[in-house]
């Protein structure tokens, strides 16, 4: 295992220490390293957004804490849910009097912990609402959308909900904006090679030298098929065919697109993919508004990429333009 590591069991804590030391201007961590909030939290009168989940997906989730996105995060071990206790602590630290939205990817562990935290927070008089992101089209059929996993498309939901909260909207409205985004975002990924979990030294899956996992999840969960390596054109067409069908996209629609690298796939390759995305949508006369290319949701050093498509209305377009300022994601 070639990693920048001391004791593997301290991996998450040491990494978080590094984050907090490097970005003390923008992030704050009071005493529990697993509870990190934007440095100006709580923002009085603003709806606060809490997120969280397992570690190993940077910039998900920690990287989305900051102006224009989320207010606080709780961080679990690698690919493992943080505790309800940490979630409650985040909730209290970011609550600015206007309620808290729990916004995270749909996984059993996270759901159980966040639901329990919500119960405890309500006991303390904090209004809490929840939106779970279920954008991974490969993880369940569309008529069971609530069973789908949350993957890279969570970025768009943070972006929309964060902008709405920043605008001063009340909790109900921020929740609605998040739901609207979650309803209109779809993602599908392709895995080339696995990553290794530091604590166990195990890889997340096995795959042949000439095979790809189509529809892979961000913990290496199996997708819908194993396929031989194809050209960039073939891979992108495959993903976009699934995504546009699932989203019912028709010519004239406006979308935003995220071409996301899962870890060790070079940015140079992601732009080859983006060129294919551009050509494919042009040909279908679907308009791309504000594309994003880069690492937005990773799985440590897993090689591969995912494409997320967000179907846009005018409100979402406006929210996509709202400035964002975290140590990991900046836009203005």
């Amino acid at each position, binding site marked *: 295992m070639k990693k920048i590591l001391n004791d593997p069991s301290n991996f998450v804590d040491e990494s978080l220490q590094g984050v907090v030391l490097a970005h003390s201007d923008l992030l704050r961590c009071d005493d529990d390293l697993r509870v990190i909030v934007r440095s100006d939290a709580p923002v009085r009168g603003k709806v606060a957004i809490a997120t969280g989940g397992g570690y190993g997906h940077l910039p998900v989730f920690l990287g989305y804490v900051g102006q224009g996105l989320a207010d606080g995060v709780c961080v*679990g*071990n690698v*690919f*493992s*849910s*943080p*505790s*309800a*206790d*940490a979630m409650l602590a985040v909730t209290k630290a970011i609550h600015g009097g206007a309620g808290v939205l729990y916004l995270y990817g749909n996984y*059993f*562990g996270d759901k*159980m*912990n966040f*639901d*329990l935290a919500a*119960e405890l927070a309500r006991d303390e008089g904090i209004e809490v609402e929840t939106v779970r992101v279920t954008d991974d089209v490969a993880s369940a059929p569309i008529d069971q959308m609530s069973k789908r996993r949350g993957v890279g498309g969570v970025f768009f939901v943070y972006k929309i909900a964060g902008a709405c909260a920043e605008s001063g909207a009340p909790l109900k409205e921020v929740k609605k904006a998040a739901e609207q985004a979650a309803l209109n975002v779809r993602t599908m990924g392709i895995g080339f090679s696995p990553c290794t*979990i530091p604590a*166990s030294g195990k890889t997340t899956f096995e795959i042949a030298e000439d095979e790809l996992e189509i529809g892979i*999840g961000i*913990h290496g*969960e*199996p997708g819908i098929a194993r396929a031989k390596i194809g050209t960039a054109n073939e891979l992108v067409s495959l993903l976009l065919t699934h995504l546009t069908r699932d989203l019912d996209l028709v010519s004239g629609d406006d979308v935003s697109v995220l071409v996301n690298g899962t870890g060790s796939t070079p940015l140079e390759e992601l732009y080859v993919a983006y060129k294919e995305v551009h050509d494919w949508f042009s040909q279908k006369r679907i308009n791309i508004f504000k594309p994003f290319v880069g690492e937005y949701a990773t799985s440590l050093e897993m090689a591969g990429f995912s494409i997320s498509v967000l179907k846009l209305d005018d409100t979402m377009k406006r929210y996509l333009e709202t400035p964002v300022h975290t140590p990991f994601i900046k836009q203005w």
Partner: protein
Amino acid sequence: MVTSNELAESFKYVAQAIHNRRDYLCELDSHAGDGDHGISMDLGWQAISNVESDGVPCAQYLRNCGKDFITAVGASIGPLYGTAFLRAAKACDGKDQLSVQDVIEMFHAAVAGMGERGGAKLGDKTLLDTLLPVDSALADGVKQNLSLNTLLEKVVSEAERGMESTAELVSRIGRSSRLGERSRGQLDPGAASAYVVIEALVTYLLPLAENVGSIQSI
């Protein structure tokens, strides 16, 4: 009547049993899960061992157990046991000491809470496959007015049967459900650790239960 000190004694006994099976539980979790189940359970029950009971009413004591469990553990098992203790606390709210009936109701509330928290049903290959049969056995035992002794023996055999049923099930919920068919053939770690909990509680209680009569008479 059961006091919070007596609850605490029994939980310490459970904690020791879990600690002894820690590696075995991790090993079970390494097949379809992430191999941490023994560690998580051990952390959680260790935390419970340290909860103060002296002079603390039962409900408050149980609430503190729940809170300390979730402080110690995230993952899946944290909110499941955390919820169980919090619901148990709610079920005996206001009571200083508990009757056997209270304890049985409390257990029912705890298991129901776990079901609600995780959305799992019997047969989904989770700890509920161990605990739901126990819950039914308790309810039946009350109806049939069994002796405490007999009931406890029934409880342990139901728990064991439930746990063992998970070997042949396909996981439909939680981390291991990712594996689909590949999850078949191994005990569910949560079901196995729940059996350790039940078995330890029963082992602890049996000597105390020796001279008491039928449940409804206590």
